[in-house]
């Protein structure tokens, strides 16, 4: 293998490039990114960066000791993948010839249809998005956040701390309900309300009003909420359109096995755009968490390098299954940490601390088996549970 192209230059792409060098790949390495920026950390965009406590230099992901010896092509999106020709075609017409490809093109924020013509309506995904939102919030008094997932709930919390009047609108029964379940989501709703955010759950947004600039929203129940700024945080869709016709199988993301390998030899996928097979759940799942983007590329690169040398005897059978998903969220002055996966019917017990103190560890069980853990401001016992879940996942995957 003489050239590897990593398509996507954010956390997953950078982590893949590092893994390639760490695992001994010494050929040509090309990183392709659609944004003009060097790799930067996205989680602070809704928190410290939005609040003005971090600046752009603080977001840089590369370190002084990174010695990737890579060619960077930034500010140009990949337009097509041609495995037959072994080439990545770029939006500006250039072509990068390569022997292997790491797909790390991430995801793009979903938007509300019909809001394109209005100023004052934001999504938050990129540094440029965050700059624009930060500038717009500086002159605003009322913010409506549509969607109480991580990004929406964090922006609501940050903006409230900046002194804005904030309304958080969520069709589900509670914030973060998809990730941590409605029961614990209700605890987060309490935290949000406690710091003065108006939380409206169980209702969606019918329309964003305004002529040239947004001036409010109309909810599905008919209520009107005035706003100077509207943030739409309703999830993300994987950036995979460029793979059409490549032979790489696409569903909700790039379909991969449990090591990140696609059905096309020499092509793996990592990060938000990738739907790895999850042996525990028996299905492909996209994981949009920072930790997955940071840690899974090492697994995928191992598979990629093993595949390249498969004829010389390496089977890749020692590849470990991915660890349970982990994420954190800082909001309302507390640190929320979650590991594993929860579904309807899981039984939740508080193992340490108490809900009343807003400091606890809760374990989710399916039958007798712990499947997930939530920690609020108790990182030490949370980490022990997280490690235990990872060890059990590894054990249950052992032959």
């Amino acid at each position: 293998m003489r050239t590897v192209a990593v398509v996507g230059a954010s956390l997953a792409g950078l982590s893949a490039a590092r893994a390639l060098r760490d695992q001994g790949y010494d050929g040509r390495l090309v990183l392709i990114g659609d944004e003009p920026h060097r790799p930067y950390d996205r989680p602070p965009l809704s928190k410290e960066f939005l609040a003005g406590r971090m600046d752009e230099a603080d977001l840089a992901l590369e370190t002084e000791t990174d010695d990737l010896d890579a060619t960077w092509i930034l500010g140009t999106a990949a337009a097509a993948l041609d495995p037959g020709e072994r080439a990545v075609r770029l939006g500006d017409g250039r072509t990068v010839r390569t022997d292997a490809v790491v797909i790390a093109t991430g995801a793009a924020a979903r938007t509300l249809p019909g809001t394109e013509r209005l100023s004052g309506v934001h999504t938050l995904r990129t540094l440029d998005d965050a700059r624009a939102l930060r500038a717009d919030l500086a002159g605003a008094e009322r913010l409506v956040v549509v969607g109480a997932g991580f990004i929406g709930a964090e922006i609501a919390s940050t903006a409230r701390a900046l002194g804005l009047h904030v309304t958080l609108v969520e069709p589900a029964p509670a914030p973060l309900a998809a990730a941590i379940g409605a029961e614990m989501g209700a605890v987060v709703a309490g935290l949000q309300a406690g710091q003065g955010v108006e939380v409206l759950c169980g209702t969606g947004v019918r329309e964003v009003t305004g002529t040239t600039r947004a001036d409010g929203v109309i909810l599905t129940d008919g209520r009107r909420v005035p706003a100077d700024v509207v943030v739409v945080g309703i999830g993300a869709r994987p950036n995979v359109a460029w793979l059409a016709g490549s032979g790489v199988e696409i569903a909700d993301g790039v379909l991969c096995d449990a090591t990140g390998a696609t059905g096309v030899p020499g092509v793996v996928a990592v990060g938000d755009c990738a739907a790895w097979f999850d042996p525990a759940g028996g299905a492909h799942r996209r994981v949009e968490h920072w930790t997955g983007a940071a840690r899974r590329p090492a697994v995928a690169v191992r598979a990629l390098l093993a595949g390249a040398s498969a004829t010389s005897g390496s089977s890749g059978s020692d590849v470990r299954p991915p660890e349970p998903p982990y994420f954190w969220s800082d909001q309302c002055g507390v640190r929320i940490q979650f590991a594993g996966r929860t579904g309807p019917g899981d039984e939740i017990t508080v193992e340490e601390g108490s809900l009343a103190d807003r400091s606890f560890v809760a374990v989710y069980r399916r039958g007798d088996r712990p499947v997930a853990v939530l920690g609020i401001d108790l990182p030490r016992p949370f980490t022990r549970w997280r490690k235990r879940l990872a060890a059990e996942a590894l054990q249950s995957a052992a032959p």
Partner: protein
Amino acid sequence: MIPACPLRSLPRGEAFRLDAEPPIAVFHTEDGQIYAIDDTCTHQDASLADGWLEGCEVECPLHASKFDLRTGQVDAPPAKLPVRTHRVVVEDGTIFVIPSEAPANLPPGVGVRPQGAA
């Protein structure tokens, strides 16, 4: 030299957060060694005393950066800068820490409170 805690109150595998300025984490490894490093991860605000101790290495409880307790060096990203190490002395059953005089690598947005401030 700052008294941290009695040796017997810090079993092997445990950590103690010393409320210095900035805070210091004292670790008792499974091998019986005692090390002290800055408690605050250099990447983002998290207490390393709450981290996962394995051998002579601690993993940050937030983003899994790893630091070598002996040198303070980063063993795994996302942290970019080392933590300071501090000398440890055990006398009459008490663990004492002699704080480093080097400047601390605190994460963005985390400042050192001036001496005497609340």
